[in-house]
Structures are given as structure tokens and as C-alpha cells.
């Protein structure tokens, strides 16, 4: 009890001694700067969200009001009717779900081999996998397209599902995690007669669940937001993802801003939900690997 009081005293004494008379001013400035940050980061987003609930007449009014005078949702309902929004949505969901499943499967298999076996070439293969991080799609666009054309993957959803699924980040993340799983567990299972495939499925995968969760969140984000792959691979408007569909509204002369705003808000909604509920996975993942696929 007396120790506690002592601790508290030294803590506050230290704080005041360190910051001197400027204590209140620094705190005030810190909060002021943070508040400014909040405004800069959120104002453009909120302006878009609020605008999407305004009527066209109100959107094009000068000077505009920040909040809608009358909240309407017809921008949303009409945008869904007028544009193939649901088609884009379906394509985006298909790509995101299948690519994430594929990424989890092949990345965890590779990570299992790299972390739980000794074999010739293991370290070389691991280095090559990490080395591919140095070759982003941006620098091999043209030859990639030619390979895709040869494999008849151009203008198919498989063309944006398969190629980016073997992420070096995912292999790295899962391998590091699987290294912490004790080899004795695997040996014991082998003695009990379990096959390698069963060891992978029933021992290693369940134990690697936290790392798999991080990779799932990452993969959903990468694939949902992906732009360059679809841009190169897809020409057929029926196969457009949401990002491609939205990117059609380029140039200054957009007339249907009310619909564009509504569709943009809908497109950022899933990522916002992922962010709101799964943020801790993202932050821990970034701490270990960075953000890139």
C-alpha cells in the first residue's frame, strides 16, 4: 500500500521535473496537432460520405453545405440499377474469396516444407521466394501479360486469382510462425503412424491459426483493392472488378457524381468493416512483415 503511493509520487514528480513548466503547453500542442491530423485524414472521406446522401441538386449547389439538408438513399439504389454494380461486386467477391483460399493453401504448404523439413536447396528456395519481393508486377507487366496470353488466362477471373496468390509475404509470415511449433510434436505423431499430409492438416495448421488469421486479413485487403493485375488482364466489362468499374470514371468531366460517390462509398465499406473489427491482426502483421503481397 505505502509502496503504491510512493510509486505514484515518483512517477508524477518525474513527469513534472522532466517537462518543467512547459508541461501543459506541450500536452496542449500534442492534442492540437493530433486533432489537426484527424481533420486532414477524415475530412475528405466524410465529405464524400455526406455528399453521397445528397440529391443531385444539392450536390451541385454553390456554396454547398457540409451535411445533407435532406438525407436520401436514391443515389445508392439508382446507382445499383443504372450501373452493373452487382456484377462488379460479384466479380470482386469471387476473386477475393477464391484467391484468399488459394493463398492460404499454397502458402501454408510451402511454409510447412520450409520450416519442418531438412532438404537440399531449402535455404536457396527460401531466398528466391523472398527475392521475388524485389520484382513487383510493375517491372514485369509486359512479359507477364505475354505469359498469361500463352496460358489463355487473359480475360478470365482465374487470371487475377492465380498469379498473385503465391505471396512471398505469406510464405515468410507462416514460416516464421511454424518455426515456433516444436518438432517433438511432429515426431510423436510420426511414431504414432501419422502420415506427413495428416501431420500438416491436423497438427501444424491448427497450431498456426493466429498467423493464418493475419494472412487472411491481408489477403482480403490485397485482393479487394487490387488494381494493376485486373487492369492488365481484364478487358471484358463483364469481368470488371469494383476497382476497375470505378476507375472508368476518370477525367474531370464526370457528370453522374451522385452515383460515383455512392458506388465509391459502397466499395470502401467492406474494407472499413475489416479495419474496424480486425485491426489488431493488421497491426501485428505489419509489425512482422510490412504490407506488401
Amino acid at each position, binding site marked *: 500500500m505505502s509502496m503504491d503511493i510512493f510509486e505514484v509520487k515518483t512517477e508524477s514528480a518525474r513527469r513534472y521535473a522532466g517537462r518543467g513548466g512547459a508541461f501543459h503547453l506541450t500536452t496542449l500542442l500534442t492534442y492540437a*496537432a493530433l486533432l489537426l491530423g484527424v481533420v486532414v485524414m477524415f475530412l475528405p472521406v466524410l*465529405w464524400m460520405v455526406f455528399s453521397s446522401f445528397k440529391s443531385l441538386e444539392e450536390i451541385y449547389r454553390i456554396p454547398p453545405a457540409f451535411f445533407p439538408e435532406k438525407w436520401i438513399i436514391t443515389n445508392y439504389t439508382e446507382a445499383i440499377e443504372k450501373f452493373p454494380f452487382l456484377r462488379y461486386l460479384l466479380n470482386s467477391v469471387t476473386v477475393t474469396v477464391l484467391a484468399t483460399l488459394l493463398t492460404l493453401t499454397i502458402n501454408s504448404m510451402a511454409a510447412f516444407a520450409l520450416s519442418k523439413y531438412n532438404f537440399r536447396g531449402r535455404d536457396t528456395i527460401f531466398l528466391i521466394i523472398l527475392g521475388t519481393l524485389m520484382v513487383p508486377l510493375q517491372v514485369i507487366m*509486359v512479359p507477364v501479360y505475354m505469359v498469361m496470353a500463352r496460358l489463355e488466362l487473359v480475360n478470365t477471373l482465374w487470371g487475377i486469382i492465380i498469379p498473385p496468390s503465391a505471396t512471398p509475404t505469406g510464405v515468410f509470415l507462416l514460416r516464421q510462425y511454424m518455426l515456433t511449433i516444436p518438432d517433438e510434436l511432429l515426431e510423436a505423431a510420426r511414431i504414432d503412424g501419422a502420415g506427413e499430409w495428416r501431420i500438416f492438416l491436423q497438427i501444424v495448421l491448427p497450431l498456426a491459426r493466429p498467423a493464418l488469421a493475419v494472412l487472411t486479413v491481408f489477403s482480403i485487403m490485397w485482393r479487394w483493392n487490387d488494381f494493376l493485375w485486373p487492369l492488365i488482364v481484364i478487358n471484358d466489362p463483364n469481368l470488371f472488378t469494383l476497382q476497375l468499374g470505378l476507375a472508368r470514371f476518370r477525367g474531370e468531366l464526370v457528370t453522374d457524381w451522385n452515383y460515383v460517390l455512392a458506388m465509391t462509398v459502397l466499395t470502401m465499406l467492406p474494407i472499413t468493416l475489416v479495419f474496424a473489427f480486425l485491426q489488431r491482426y493488421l497491426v501485428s502483421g505489419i509489425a512482422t512483415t510490412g504490407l506488401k503481397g
Partner: protein
Amino acid sequence: MPSRRRLFYIPYLFLAPNLLVFVLFIIIPAIYNFYLSLFKTSFDKPPEFVGLDNFIYLFQRDDFFWRALSNLIVFVIGDVGLILILSLGIALLLNEDIRWRGFFRSVFFYPVLLSPVVVALIWRWFLNTQYGLLNNILRAFEIPPQPWLLRPDLAMLWVILVHVWATVGFFALILLAGLQAIPPVLYEAAVVDGATRWRSFWHITLPLLAPTIFVVLILSMIRAFEVFDHIYALTGGGPGTATMMIVQYIYRTGFEMNQFGLAAAASLVLFIIIFSLTLLQYWLGRLREAV
């Protein structure tokens, strides 16, 4: 164990699917890119071997390439400079003894998760000459509306600012992790010795954070050199070619003009830049470990 010997191929089987995708879609194209850069290709003629002519053309005669390169240099300097200053500032603020730290951290991080296309549309609406919020705020101060994305110099400025807005939270998070790894004992000792906060910053924070700052520097440079999506959706490289960067040059040359060979040569130039930056990071990382 004899049974283990029979199973030598097992790890290769587990690796196979992932490696197959890598080989097909990264390694083969990367090698093929070298080969392709030595050919002249066009719509109507079969590819013709031209040696290093594509590179000579790029650097000696191609005004578009020079335009893209000089745009990119301006962009990289502005983007990386702002990211370094702002991410450090944000990390220092978030490292303070503040309430609602989780909330503030989320605020800066949120745009990082938005897709480049969404980011571009948010800002195009915000910067819209007539109906955008920014010009209407300025109007209240009797400043006439500015065509933010339609004037070459302003467009370049906003391309940089929007890209910084969208990515700075990621780098701030890396620096925050670096700051939190500095032992608090050091600051306490400095306080005992009567050091001001400013002196603690210069003599403790900066030197100990230097490795992390360096990582941020290299990573943000690589990202800046690779930039494409944000700008493509924000200005399309315009007005004219005012915000066209190398990746867009490659895209345009390859996919709009079918000059695959020339595009491959330009890709190689970009690859060499990114490759050297990565080597530099690796090498300095090793150097630090050795010390």
C-alpha cells in the same frame, strides 16, 4: 530411419504449387523481360532483334521517357521528403503519453487500407474545381477557385500530397514500433541528468531510431518509384503528361502502343533502380549487424 529416406520428395511436393506459380508468373517473366528488351516490336511487323537500341532510344531520343523520368524524380523527392517528416512527426505524437492512442493511431492508418481508386475518387471530389469542398472553403475567404488537378504544377503537387495522405500512416506505424523499442530507462537517466526534452530527442531518440528511419526511407523510395495506381486514377498522368511516371510510361508503351520491346527496356531501367535500393538496404542492414 529408412522410412524417412523414402520420403525425401515430400517437402518438394508441399512446395510445388507455390513454386509453380512463382516460376510461371514472376521468374519466367523476369527473365523474359531481359530478352524482350533487345527486340523491336510493333503492331504489324514480326519482332526484330535490335541489341541495345531500345535503351539508346529511351535515353537519347524519347521525350516521353525523359518526361516520365523527370516527373518521377520530382515526385520521389517530394513524396519521400514529406513522408519522412510527417511519419516521424505522427509517430512522435502517438508515442506521447496521450489518451485514446488507439483511436488516433487508427485515424492515421485508415487511408492505408483504402484502394488507390477509392482514394483517388475521394480526392477528386474534394478537389473538384466547382463543387469540391476545398475551393468552397477558399471561396469563403474570397480566394477564387483553383483548378487543382488541371494545372500541371498544381496537379503534380496534389498527386504528391494525395499519395502521402494515403501511405504515411503505414510508415508512421513502423516508426512508432521503433520508438517503443527504445528503453525508457534512457530517458529517465537523461531527466536525472537534467536534459531537456529537445536534447533527449537529439541525443537519444534520433540516434536510436536511425535504423528504423533508414528502413522507412528506402521502403518509401521503392514505393514512390513504383507508383502507378493512385496517379492513374487521380489524373491519368495528366494534364498532358504532367504527372506521367515511369510505370505509366511502360503501361502506355506496352499496352496502348504495342511496343513491347521498348516497354521491356523501360521496365528494366525501373527494375535496376528498385534492385539497387533493395541491395543498399540489405547491405546496410548487414553492416549494422556486424558492428
